[in-house]
Every structure is written in structure tokens, then in C-alpha cells.
């Protein structure tokens, strides 16, 4: 009996894990099947180039985002200059723009036929910009799109630990520059590394931006293996190389996370006293911030508005058709995102509750529980292309078994949105899990015990205390998933059944044809949606403990 108890109580945990971790397992199990010619071809011709490309991208984007993120965070936390409090939050805004949108907007702006080069040429200035369609170009675009991760983590690090130590160092007569390299950076290093790891995972995962730039990486090769060379199996095997790389990053991230130190939460952080800059540095820093913000957010958004209105103009004749098409795509995107948000929230709740129950009942095996949860939420690190391949393979496999077993012809799940949902669940369950968990942590055991001592039944405690306290977490988790699914490209592109195009898929198709005007309106829609989590992220929390 005693042995059975953990099995029963852990059942929901195993259920969630088996759903969310399945696509990954399928990828790894693909090695049980024989290697085909397409894989050998890809392995011989593509792997080395893809490896080199990926390494350059990781190196460039890693250095770029670190320099941008850390310097901007240092300026906005330690100094006072014109517009500081505006830049403090505005520098997070680029997170609202999907990387692939920034990629095609930058391409259309800076290409030889783009307005900027045209302007320079017309002026006869003789200035020739380096070609945007290059390794440097894609690094530049991804750096601008992803630096806010490093910025957010570094800012948090500087605010919580750097400032007090900073003041001590300054009181000991150290110049701010010396303080930065001797105190602030070393103390915030684990936080900065966490931000950097997120950036590198996003870089590895990216499919949209690199395919717009025709820059071959693992994700584009996986896509090509499946959609141009028609070997799902080769795609799966190729995916496992990327899984290996991702796991290295996850491991590094874990190591950095363990070294993160927090100041005690019961005392509010010391009020920050910023040094007012004077003279050239004062203007210089402000100009630096505005230039980054211009290229990463303002110019792209203005350009999108510009292109969108051109799109309207060129469609003036068949405007109603265009509107209908756009509205249809929007509808389908919203439908998919809503379904995914509901599913992940349900599974996220199940995960949070079963984790608590199994941690309570199996007090001797906390490691097992936390490992299972870790495994269930691992999908956040996996590129969408991998989850798409894994999801389709799994659904096809189950479908074969089912139809054979039931003795029917045709298919039950292939051609439905089941693989898509599986991919979304796997990739985004961490979002709802985290937001629900954070809300649950606020319900200390004493709160429930106090309610019981006041005569409340378990049902009343759930209705009056637990649900109201967790509701906010459930809602913001669902919202985050909703927005991310709206923006998601590779899973949707690769697993969608016929007729399930979304805004993101449409953007991919328009941009690969070079019809940038038509990609502008869907892109603008996604940028506005993307602003929601950015606002959630920077908004102060309502209840504090």
C-alpha cells in the first residue's frame, strides 16, 4: 500500500510530463530507425557550415546583447541624464517586436533598394553602408531584438545588489568606472549570465529571422530536410544535434541560477541615489539610448505603419477582399491562441497542484518531484522547429497505432491541430506554470491554517482564499501564452493543417515572396499584442509581502 501511494499521487505529474516531454523523447528515439540518404547528405554537406554559422551567430549576438544590455542598464540605474526615467522602461519595448518582424523591416530599410541607401545615393554622399544581408546584418538585427533580456536581468541585478555596494565603493573614493568593473559587474555576473543564456536560447531557436536573411542554421536545415527534401526522419535526427546544444545552454543557465544571490526580501531595497551627469557625457548617454531605441523600436514601428498604409493604398481596389483575408487570419490566430492558452492553463494548474501534493506526501523524495517538474517544463528551451518535428512524428505514430488497432482506414489525428497544440503545450507550459506558482507561493501555510482556525471548510478556503489569490496568476499566465502563440512561427508553420494559416505564417509567406507591404499589417497587430506582456513585465505587483 505504501508503495502504491506515490504512484497514485504522482500520476498527474507523470501525465503532464508524458504530454509535454513527448516531442523531445520522439526526437531522441528517432535514432532507433535507420539513417536515410537525406540525413547522410545533410550531414556531409550541411553540418559544418551550419555549425560555423551558428557559432558566429551565438558569438556575435552574445557579445552584442551583453554590451548593449549591460551598458544601458548601468546608465539607467547609476546615472541621471535627460529622459532617464523614460528610457528606464522604454528600452524594454523592443521585446514587443517579434525577431522575424524586426528582421524583414530592417532588411527593407537598409537594403540597397531601401529608402536609406537610396537617400544616401541621391544625396551623392558617397557613403556606402555595409550590406545588411550578411552575417553582420543578422547579428545586428538579433542583437537589437534580444538585448532587452540582458538589460532586464542586469538592471534587476544592479538595482538589488549593485547600488548599496556601489555607494560603499564610492565612499571609499573609487571612480564610477572603477566601481563598475570591480564591484557592480562581478556582483551581478550570475544575473547577467542568466539574461545572456535566455538570449542564446532564443538565438538557437530562431527560425523566422534567419530564414528571412537566408542564413543557414540548424532550424532552417531542419525545415529544409522536411519541407524541401521530404524526410521527416532526417529532420528529427538533425534536430538532436540542436537538442544537444540547447542542453549545454540549459546546464549553464542552471549553474548561473544557482549562483544568483538575493538580498533579503523583507527589507525594501535602499533608495537609489543616482549621480547626475554633466557636460558631454550627459548628452552622450542620452543620445546613445535614443539611437538604440530608434533602431530597435521607433523606426521599425514607423516603417510598419508606413508600409501598412501603402498596403491599404495598393489594395484600394480590392480592399474588402484584403480586409476579409486579414480578419480571417486574425480570427484563426485568436482561436488557436485561445485554445492553447486554455490548454496550457489547465495543464499548468494540474502541474502546480500535483507538485504540491506529491511534495507534501512524499517528503522523502523532493528531488524526484522537482526533476519531474523540470522535465515537464523543459520545452521552453527547445526550438519550435524541434517541437514541430517531434509533435508531428508522435501524432503520426499514435495515429497508425490507433487506426491499425481499431481496424479503420484513413486517419484520426493527422491533419488535425493536435500536433500543433502538443507543440504549443510543450513550449509554453512553463509560462502558465510559473505565473500560477508565483501566485501560489503567496498563500503561505499560515494563511490556510488561519482560515481553518476561523472555522472555514476546505471548500470555503478554496473559494474565498485560494482561488481569489491565484486568479491573477492564472490570468496573466494565460495572457502570456496567448500572446506568445499569436507570435509563434515555426510550430505553426510546420504543423498547421490545411486552412489553419495564422498572422505569423502569413508574415513568413509574404516576406519570403518579398511582399513587405502586405506583411506590415499582420506585423503591426503582433507588435501591439506583444506590448501586453512587456507592460505586465514592467508593472509593479499589487500585493507585497
Amino acid at each position, binding site marked *: 500500500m505504501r508503495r502504491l501511494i506515490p504512484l497514485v499521487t504522482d500520476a498527474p505529474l507523470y501525465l503532464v510530463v508524458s504530454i509535454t516531454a513527448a516531442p523531445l523523447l520522439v526526437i531522441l528515439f528517432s535514432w532507433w530507425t535507420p539513417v536515410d540518404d537525406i540525413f547522410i547528405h545533410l550531414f556531409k554537406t550541411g553540418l559544418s557550415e551550419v555549425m560555423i554559422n551558428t557559432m558566429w551567430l551565438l558569438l556575435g549576438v552574445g557579445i552584442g546583447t551583453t554590451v548593449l544590455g549591460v551598458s544601458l542598464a548601468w546608465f539607467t540605474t547609476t546615472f541621471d541624464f535627460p529622459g532617464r526615467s523614460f528610457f528606464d522602461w522604454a528600452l524594454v519595448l523592443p521585446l514587443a517586436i517579434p525577431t522575424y518582424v524586426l528582421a524583414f523591416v530592417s532588411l527593407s530599410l537598409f537594403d540597397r533598394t531601401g529608402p536609406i541607401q537610396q537617400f544616401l545615393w541621391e544625396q551623392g554622399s558617397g557613403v556606402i553602408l555595409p550590406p545588411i544581408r550578411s552575417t553582420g546584418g543578422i547579428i545586428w538585427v538579433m542583437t537589437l531584438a534580444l538585448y532587452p533580456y540582458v538589460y532586464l536581468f542586469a538592471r534587476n541585478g544592479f538595482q538589488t545588489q549593485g547600488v548599496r555596494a556601489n555607494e560603499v565603493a564610492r565612499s571609499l573614493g573609487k571612480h564610477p568606472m572603477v566601481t563598475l568593473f570591480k564591484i557592480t559587474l562581478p556582483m551581478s555576473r550570475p544575473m547577467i549570465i542568466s539574461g545572456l543564456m535566455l538570449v542564446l536560447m532564443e538565438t538557437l531557436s530562431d527560425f523566422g529571422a534567419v530564414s528571412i536573411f537566408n542564413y543557414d542554421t540548424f532550424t532552417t536545415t531542419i525545415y529544409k530536410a522536411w519541407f524541401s527534401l521530404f524526410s521527416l526522419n532526417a529532420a528529427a535526427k538533425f534536430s538532436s544535434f540542436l537538442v544537444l546544444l540547447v542542453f549545454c545552454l540549459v546546464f549553464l543557465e542552471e549553474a548561473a541560477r544557482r549562483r544568483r544571490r538575493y538580498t533579503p526580501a523583507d527589507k525594501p531595497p535602499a533608495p537609489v541615489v543616482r549621480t547626475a551627469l554633466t557636460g558631454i557625457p550627459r548628452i552622450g548617454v542620452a543620445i546613445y539610448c535614443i539611437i538604440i531605441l530608434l533602431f530597435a523600436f521607433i523606426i521599425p514601428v514607423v516603417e510598419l505603419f508606413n508600409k501598412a498604409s501603402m498596403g491599404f493604398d495598393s489594395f484600394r481596389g480590392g480592399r474588402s477582399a484584403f480586409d476579409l483575408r486579414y480578419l480571417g487570419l486574425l480570427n484563426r490566430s485568436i482561436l488557436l491562441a485561445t485554445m492553447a492558452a486554455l490548454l496550457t492553463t489547465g495543464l499548468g494548474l494540474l502541474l502546480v497542484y500535483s507538485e504540491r501534493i506529491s511534495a507534501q506526501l512524499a*517528503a*522523502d523524495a523532493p528531488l524526484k518531484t522537482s526533476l519531474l517538474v523540470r522535465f515537464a517544463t523543459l520545452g521552453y528551451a527547445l526550438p519550435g522547429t524541434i517541437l514541430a518535428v517531434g509533435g508531428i512524428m508522435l501524432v503520426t505514430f499514435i495515429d497508425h497505432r490507433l487506426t491499425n488497432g481499431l481496424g479503420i482506414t484513413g486517419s484520426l489525428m493527422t491533419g488535425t491541430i493536435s500536433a500543433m497544440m502538443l507543440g504549443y503545450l510543450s513550449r509554453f507550459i512553463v509560462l502558465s506554470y510559473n505565473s500560477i506558482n508565483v501566485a501560489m507561493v*503567496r498563500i*503561505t501555510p*499560515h*494563511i490556510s*491554517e*488561519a*482560515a*481553518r*482556525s*476561523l*472555522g*472555514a*471548510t476546505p471548500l*470555503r478556503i478554496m473559494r*474565498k*482564499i485560494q482561488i*481569489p*489569490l491565484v486568479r491573477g496568476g492564472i490570468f496573466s499566465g494565460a495572457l502570456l501564452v496567448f500572446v506568445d502563440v499569436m507570435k509563434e512561427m515555426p510550430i505553426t508553420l510546420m504543423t498547421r493543417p490545411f486552412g489553419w494559416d495564422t498572422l505569423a505564417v502569413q508574415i513568413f509567406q509574404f516576406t519570403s515572396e518579398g511582399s513587405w507591404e502586405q506583411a506590415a499589417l499582420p506585423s503591426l497587430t503582433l507588435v501591439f499584442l506583444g506590448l501586453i506582456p512587456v507592460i505586465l513585465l514592467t508593472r509593479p505587483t499589487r*500585493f*507585497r*509581502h
Partner: protein
Amino acid sequence: MALIQLANVTKRYPHANMAAVTDVSFSVERGKVLALLGPSGSGKTTLLRLIAGFESPDSGTVLLGGLNMNVPGKVVPTENRKVGMVFQDGGLFPHLTVHQNIAFGLHSLGKLERDKKVSEMLHLVSLSRFGTTYPHELSGGQQQRVALARALAPNPIVLLLDEPFSSLDPDMRTRMREEVHTILRGVGITAILVTHDHEEAFAMADQVAVLNSGRLEQLDTPEMVYHLPQTPFVADFVGSADFIKGEIKSDGAIHTEIGCFQNQQNRDQGADIVVMVRPDDVHLVPDLDGSATIISKQFRGSENLYEISLASGQIVHSSENSLAVYTVGTKVRIELTATHTVVFREDTLTNVLA
């Protein structure tokens, strides 16, 4: 009849090496305040949780109002025990206002009655203006007063306080202690207070139960616990104490380096014993021929605490009126003012001094 009665209660948590509570029995009369005093890990909070019903004893019985709470198969759940609880961190509901927090336990009343009771309770804890405030906007002391009002509102049969002042600042703690003491006496409620601070226990309780490693060492009035501790552990835990080697001579008295004590507990001649003396029992007189020397002085406001080295090297402490000032190095002799003699066997002392 006692309102609360624990008999031979033992509780062991799964996967723990040691029982949290071993064979503890005590009772509390209606309207009295009992303090459970002990260091962390002594089992005092476990006892409180057993009474509240968050835990069940492995053996022994818990009686509330004469009813056995743990009849096998019919354990009375916390929500039916009518106990009020105040936690160290208050345990206030963060999403409810002060008014709603206090009203939470009053759901069986009509709205009018409920509102009346809530404003009564707010008045009792002097927070009448804070009904619409959220907990996070209150200071720590105010939060604890809301927690007290919330616990008292449904008229519980017993109030359980789990280290209610330990998260407050020291000066706030003393003030809250007095306020809560006044409120408890005013309401006349039976209460059990868990604390590791003997001053808090002495100031608030009628009876003090001193716990050590899950066992009840002594249950007595604060005065008796202080002046007549039954074990060396209690002697040391409830105030500073020095233990001085003594010898029972044929005249029946206990002879020590600092003087003779009456053999009140009729110990056998020749046993290896020590006598406990508290700093307030030891009086020092400057004496050029004295064999003892002052080795340090600590000013404590109302008193000076002197550390004195006797001829044998034994250290004793003496608290003197803060107007009596002697310099370090002064030769002194010791005079004793103790009315009780507390004697322990020397071999029982080791775990205290270690």
C-alpha cells in the same frame, strides 16, 4: 474542570530522527494564560498545532472543553474546534481588507451583526480607522493587532498565539506585549502563548511550561520557574545563573566558596552538588582583604552587571544598583541574599554548560 487538558501526548513527524513531543501532560484552567517556553526545536509549536488540530498525536489525548479531540476515526478537524490562532507572520489574507479579514470567521452571523462585531473588534485593538485598509499597508504591529482581532471575533474557547511578537522590532515588541496582555485580561479569554523569550512568558502568563527537546521540564508560576527551577536547563534558560560547587558537611549546611546555604532539599551528605545563584542574589562589597576580583563591568541602565573571579577561578555574576560603581580590578567579598537554595547534582549540569 480544566478547559484544555493534554495527557501523555507524544508526536513524531515522519522521517524525523527524534520525537517532536514526548509524553507531555498539562492543563489550563478557564481564563488563564499558559506560556509554552523553550528554545527552537523544543516542541512548543508542535504542542500548539496538536491543540489546534493541524496535527494528531501518535499517542496520548488532547481534551478541549472536556471533549477528546482525537477519538480514532472521529478526529475533530480544526475548523470545528473553535480555536483562535495568531501566527508569527499574522497569516492575514492579503486580498481582503482589515474589515473583511476580521469578518472572515463571522460568516454564520447576519450582515448587521457581523459589521457590529467587526467594529467592536477594531475598537478593541484601537484600529477603528483602518477597516478599509489592506494588510500590506499596515505596520507589523498593526498587522498583528488585526490578526488578534480576527482570532478573537468568533469568540473562540481558546486563543493560540504562536510567537506573535517575534517578527516585530524590539521596542515595538515590548509595547505590543503590554497591549495584548491588557486585551487578553480584558476579554478574559483562555490563551496559550508559544515563545522562546522568558521575559515575554513571565510578563504575560499565569503559568509557564518550560520545554526542552520535546519534554516538559517544569510547569509552574513564573516566580517559581525563576526562583526554584527544577532542572539545570530551566535554571539557565529563564535567566542568567552561575553554578557553584558545594559540599554538604556534617552540620547539614551546604558549604561553598561564597558562603553557606541551607540544605532545603535534604540532599545526602557527600554528594557532588552545585548551588545555583542568580546575579540578583549575589551582592558584592569592596574589601581590600577580599579574595575575589571584579574582572569586568557592564552598564545596563537600571543596573550594573559585574563579573567576579573567585579565588578558585570560578566566575560569578552580580547585579548591583547602577549607582554603585566599582572599577575593574577591585578586590571584593561576596554577600548572599538568596531566600531559596537551588541545588543540582553536579553530573546533571553537563548538558547546560556545554
